[in-house]
């Protein structure tokens, strides 16, 4: 018997008792929705607590300190080749780094000096992928665009007390002039480079931290290096009264520009928190010393995992209760149709065909229940996320942090719930289906004589 005909049979059978079918599907849908919503709270709290409070970047970030000295005896620094190597590791979203510029180029905006504390060369594209957050503006896209630290207009006094906050975003889109120092014939000279302030970094999450850096791209670094003739724009420490020859000598000792740069604060950003463990292992194998917050989050995640398993277990019980309805419905259907089944067997229907038809029917009930249950649970999840913060704020006078989700339904939870609903439906339809195949032909035929 062809599958299409089996479906036709099932449809005809289902039409015979629509109320009963509706109630059964309803019960299954409720069980399935209960399972999804319940488990979604586990997923939601985990995501909100772990991901939001700890911060997405930190969870997926893996700090690379250096290379393993036992493997790389000569030099444990991280070079261009290492960055490429890191980027090639599967599931790595981005590799970010900080590269000190060797001098503070005394930048000015509208003639006013910019008093930051350091200049970093960063990979803006990688930073963007890694989730570099801005408080204003956008990430640089063109050459000669820079980012200013959030606290760039603040200074600390001798005791380290910061001055009053001044809004850096006022400088957005303004031209910043970088005065690059270089030696020519033993004389320190300045050459200006013009750049545009594209964005302002986000406010540091920790109160005591200040971001007073100037972030430039690799293009600007290149320009600086070509002016100074040294790597990272570094200038030699020149003692008072040195001769031009001595200064030339000092300059020669500095690494040449464009050569193999070495990077600090290298961070590998995983595509997903789940990938961090795998990536760390690869890193360790390759001989990179690394550390991730995920190592420390293991405990927390384990707790949530147990919680989620518990919630899914409780939700599954609801589905199993609903399956009693399916069992009942299918048993009744088999009883009602005993005569038809008997006739079909009498003229040559294979028992497996009969079994398939009834299994298909219970599977369809399961699928309908799962689909409806899923739709409903997405609705409930949305309502909970929208409504619960308001309720908590009104009745408990406690503010829920922005973006805090109580209920999150990852696709695989839906898939799992649907699989459970379908599996349980098939399981509960199995005995009735088996009973149908065992219907005695003669007894069924005799019934209406």
């Amino acid at each position, binding site marked *: *018997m062809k599958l299409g*005909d089996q479906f036709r049979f099932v449809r*005809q059978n289902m039409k015979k008792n629509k109320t009963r079918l509706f109630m059964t599907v309803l019960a299954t849908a409720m069980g399935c929705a209960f399972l999804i919503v319940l488990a979604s709270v586990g997923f939601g709290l985990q995501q909100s607590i772990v991901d939001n409070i700890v911060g997405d970047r930190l969870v997926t970030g893996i700090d690379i300190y250096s290379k393993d000295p036992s493997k790389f005896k000569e030099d444990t620094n991280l070079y261009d080749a290492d960055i490429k190597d890191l980027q090639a590791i599967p599931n790595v979203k981005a590799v970010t780094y900080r590269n000190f510029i060797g001098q503070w180029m005394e930048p000015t905006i509208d003639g006013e000096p910019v008093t930051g504390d350091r200049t970093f060369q960063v990979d803006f594209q990688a930073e963007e992928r890694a989730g570099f957050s801005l408080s204003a503006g956008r990430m640089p896209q063109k050459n000669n665009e820079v980012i200013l630290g959030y606290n760039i207009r603040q200074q600390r006094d001798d005791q380290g007390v910061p001055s009053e906050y001044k809004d850096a975003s006022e400088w957005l889109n303004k031209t910043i002039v970088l005065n690059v120092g270089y030696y020519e014939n033993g004389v320190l000279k300045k050459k200006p480079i013009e750049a545009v302030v594209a964005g302002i970094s986000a406010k540091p999450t920790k109160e005591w931290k200040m971001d007073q850096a100037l972030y430039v791209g690799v293009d600007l670094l290149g320009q600086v290096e070509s002016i100074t003739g040294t790597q990272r724009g570094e200038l030699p420490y020149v003692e008072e009264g040195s001769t031009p020859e001595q200064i030339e000598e000092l300059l020669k000792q500095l690494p040449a520009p464009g050569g193999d740069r070495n990077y600090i604060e290298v961070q590998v950003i995983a595509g997903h928190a789940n990938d961090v463990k795998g990536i760390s292992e690869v890193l360790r194998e390759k001989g990179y010393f690394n550390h991730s917050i995920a190592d420390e989050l293991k405990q927390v995640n384990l707790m949530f995992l147990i919680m989620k398993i518990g919630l899914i277990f409780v939700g599954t019980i609801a589905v199993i209760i609903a399956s009693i309805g399916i069992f009942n419905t299918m048993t009744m259907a088999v009883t009602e149709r005993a005569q*038809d089944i008997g*006739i079909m067997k009498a003229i040559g*229907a294979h*028992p497996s065909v009969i079994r398939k038809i009834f299994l298909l029917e219970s599977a369809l009930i399961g699928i309908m229940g799962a689909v409806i249950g899923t739709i409903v649970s997405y609705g409930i999840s949305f309502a909970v996320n929208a409504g619960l913060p308001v309720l908590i704020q009104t009745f408990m006078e406690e503010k829920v942090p922005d973006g805090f989700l109580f209920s999150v339904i990852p696709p695989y939870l839906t898939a799992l719930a649907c699989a459970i609903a379908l599996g349980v439906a098939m399981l509960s339809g199995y005995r009735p289906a088996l009973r149908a195949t065992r219907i005695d032909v*003669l007894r069924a035929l005799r019934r209406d004589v």
Partner: protein
Amino acid sequence: MIELANVSHQFIIGKKGKERVVPVLHDIDLKVAKGEIVAIVGRSGSGKSTLLNLMSGYIRPSAGEIKIGGRDVTKLSEGEWADFRLANYGFIFQSFQLIGSMTAYENVELPLVLKGITGAERKQRVMRLMEQIGIAEYGGHYPSELSGGQQQRVSVARSLILEPPIVLADEPSGSLDSENEKTLLTMIQQLNHEMGITFVIITHDEQVASIAHRAIRLQDGKLVHQSDYRQVAAHDEQHRSVAGVDYIRQGGERE
């Protein structure tokens, strides 16, 4: 075509521990040739239906061997029996045994559906047969909307749709009036004649037995009489068989 050798059957009834054995058939030896119409006659309770049910595979013989078309079917599994029935048998029942929730068309179509035949071929075969049997116009009717004669014709159509070599009929005219009975008998004779279908028909009706080539009498579970009906009928004062054949010859014109 059908061979029964030393077939016996007994039912076991009653609760466990208090079973009672009801012997029904004893040492039946029977051969039905291809293209034969065989009538099984006998009093009610003599074991006719049991004999046919053994041939159908609805029950298994307690002893003996059954061969259909040379194949030993005694030890077939339930699934094998199902396929065997579908491939070799058409069934006509006294109470028609149509599926009430299906239309006449769908009932006739059912064996084709079970066989996995689809599409245009299926439709064509059903339509043609229903036209031949004169029920094309009732295709959309449910069995409850048809008369007994119409229902029996639907069931005949269902039994023939796969063009089986053998048709087993248990009291096929038992629920029909004499007019419809005659039509049914005409049909059986025609099918036998034109398509060479072997018929085994249970009946206690002499009219039905009269169209058979051979009648077998069962008495208390034993075969007591096998006769070439036409031979017997030659000596029969009422000449039923001749009357029957005459009727059938005219049947096509009358209908």
